[in-house]
């Protein structure tokens, strides 16, 4: 981790009109690695992800440091952000049923990324699109290229999404619950495709999920978030050493195949966890 892609220090976010901050004092750094962000629904995971892309209109974002490669994200203007989004940093959204434009062909939506960031002709963009669709294991790219989102399955839709977001070869990809909307049967398949591409291309990945069990196999490190704060950071393989009671609760709440058949633990929540920051 000699050359961090992203440095976040003391990030706080407040939505317009909200009485308190949705995210408070979040700090982490990210190299060319895969970082998991895990927490229950509403804990502020997506808010962090969108803040990094500065896609929270009206929200107040403060931080001691918000550095992406050579850029100070806090200081960037919207015009400068346009050159960052999609090109150097992108995001995979949760549900392809909603995150793809329903009345545009899949192929032209992928090609849009290319046309936006590179001075290429339509034909070149199409070639690049087909290549990218093949790279996400779509067997018949020519056919899928001309389909509409409602004509493809969820797993295929999410692969199209991955193709769209990786096409410009960004340095950082945020995957916001990329498999939560998918059938259990294709989740692993999609995650493996994403994982393979990210590893091959040396892309930094932030994998947001509420499912600790799913994420731990794909990430080098995991941040545990609770009520807008990071309560604990764990390295892969060190989950047994979890200190924080909330993390322990999360781990205990995971059902294990072949594990002892005792009732799953109910998550314990204490107000003081939202106050203190564990060292």
């Amino acid at each position, binding site marked *: 981790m000699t050359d961090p892609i992203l440095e976040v220090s003391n990030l706080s976010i407040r939505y317009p009109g909200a009485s308190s901050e949705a995210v408070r004092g979040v700090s982490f750094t990210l190299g060319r690695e895969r970082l998991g962000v895990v927490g229950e629904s509403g804990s502020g995971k997506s808010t962090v992800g969108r803040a990094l892309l500065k896609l929270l209109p009206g929200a107040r974002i403060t931080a001691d440091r918000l550095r992406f490669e050579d850029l100070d994200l806090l200081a960037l203007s919207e015009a400068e952000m346009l050159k960052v989004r999609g*090109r150097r940093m992108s995001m995979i959204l949760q549900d392809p049923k909603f*995150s793809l434009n*329903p009345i545009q062909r899949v192929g032209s939506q992928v090609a*849009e990324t290319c046309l936006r960031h590179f001075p290429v002709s339509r034909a070149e963009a199409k070639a690049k699109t087909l290549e990218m669709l093949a790279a996400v294991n779509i067997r018949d790219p020519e056919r899928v290229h001309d389909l509409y989102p409602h004509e493809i399955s969820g797993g295929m839709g999410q692969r199209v*999404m991955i193709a769209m977001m990786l096409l410009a070869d960004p340095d950082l990809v945020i995957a916001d619950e990329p498999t939560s909307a998918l059938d259990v049967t294709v989740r692993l398949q999609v995650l493996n495709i994403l994982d393979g591409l990210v590893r091959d291309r040396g892309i930094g990945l932030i994998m947001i999920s509420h499912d600790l069990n799913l994420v731990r196999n794909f990430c080098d490190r995991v941040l545990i978030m609770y009520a807008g704060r990071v309560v604990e950071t764990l390295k892969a393989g060190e989950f047994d050493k979890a200190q924080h009671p909330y993390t322990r609760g999360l781990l205990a709440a995971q059902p294990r195949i072949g594990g002892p058949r005792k009732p799953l633990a109910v998550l314990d929540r204490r107000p003081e966890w939202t106050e203190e920051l564990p060292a």
Partner: protein
Amino acid sequence: MSTGRRRLRRAAGQLASVAITLLGLLVLTFFIGRMMPADPVRAIVGEDATPETYDMVHAQLGLDRPLWAQFLRYMGDVLTGNFGQSIRTGQPVIQDILHVMPATIELATFAIVIGAGLGIPLGVLAAVNRDRWIDHAVRVFSLFGHSMPIFWTGMIGLLVFYAWLGWVGGSGRMDYFYIGMVPGRTGFLLIDSLLAGRWEVFRSAVNHLILPAALLGYSASAYITRMTRSFMLDQLNQEYMTTARVKGLSRGQTIWRHAFGNIRVQLVTIVALSYGALLEGAVLIETVFAWPGFGQYLTNNLVIGDMNAVMTCVLIVGVIFILLNLLSDVLYRLFDPRTK
């Protein structure tokens, strides 16, 4: 295969439904026509006709037969395009109406272009600036257009822009000294004057058209604005808008390429429906502007109580309405990929 058959079934169902509605229109116009307190025979034979003449005409009109037989005869007449004679002109009513229709279509088309050209951008603007002052201003502006008594606005418009300022032409379709100067090949004065190469007539026609069309368009824009705004709001909240932003598109690009692109089909249907509603305003505005179109024909015949002509006009408007509804439905099916 089965989708083809399903589509066929749906088309057949729709045709049947249109046919039933058309039949209903006929029943309605038939009964309204019979409701008239005045005696249609008297209107034809005059006050001091002999009882024999009266009875003859009475029988000629089929009024001695039972109601259902009268209705069948009416239906047969309508289906064969026989709408009777106009009392005023002595011509077949349908011929009169076909003669005046181009003037109205010219006016309504100009008006809908103005209405859509005003309403759609305003609706987008309001949606994008939801709950900010622009949104409120657009709302008041469009409600204002919706609240104007259009016949009154027409008169005030004539007073201000014609009589006082002299910016536009006055009543009618052109200055009176141009009347009859261009041959009426299509009935559309703008086209006819261009075909004849008479620029001054064309200019005069535009001068006369602009004010009534603008007023009609403004009043029609209220509905278009409101619907555009609400369609846009639906789209702006969609997740794919975020996707587009993540790809690096600017806010303007996402709004126009994605959100607006996705409401185009809906807008076409709204504009088609508004075109029908325009005909209503046209009746009043044509009266004010002495516009020799369908609306003026209708009101002129109302005043003299020629129910035959009136009911034919009403029937035709009803048919146009139904066809526009059908058209907007078909357009929706054709252009929205999700319905395929």
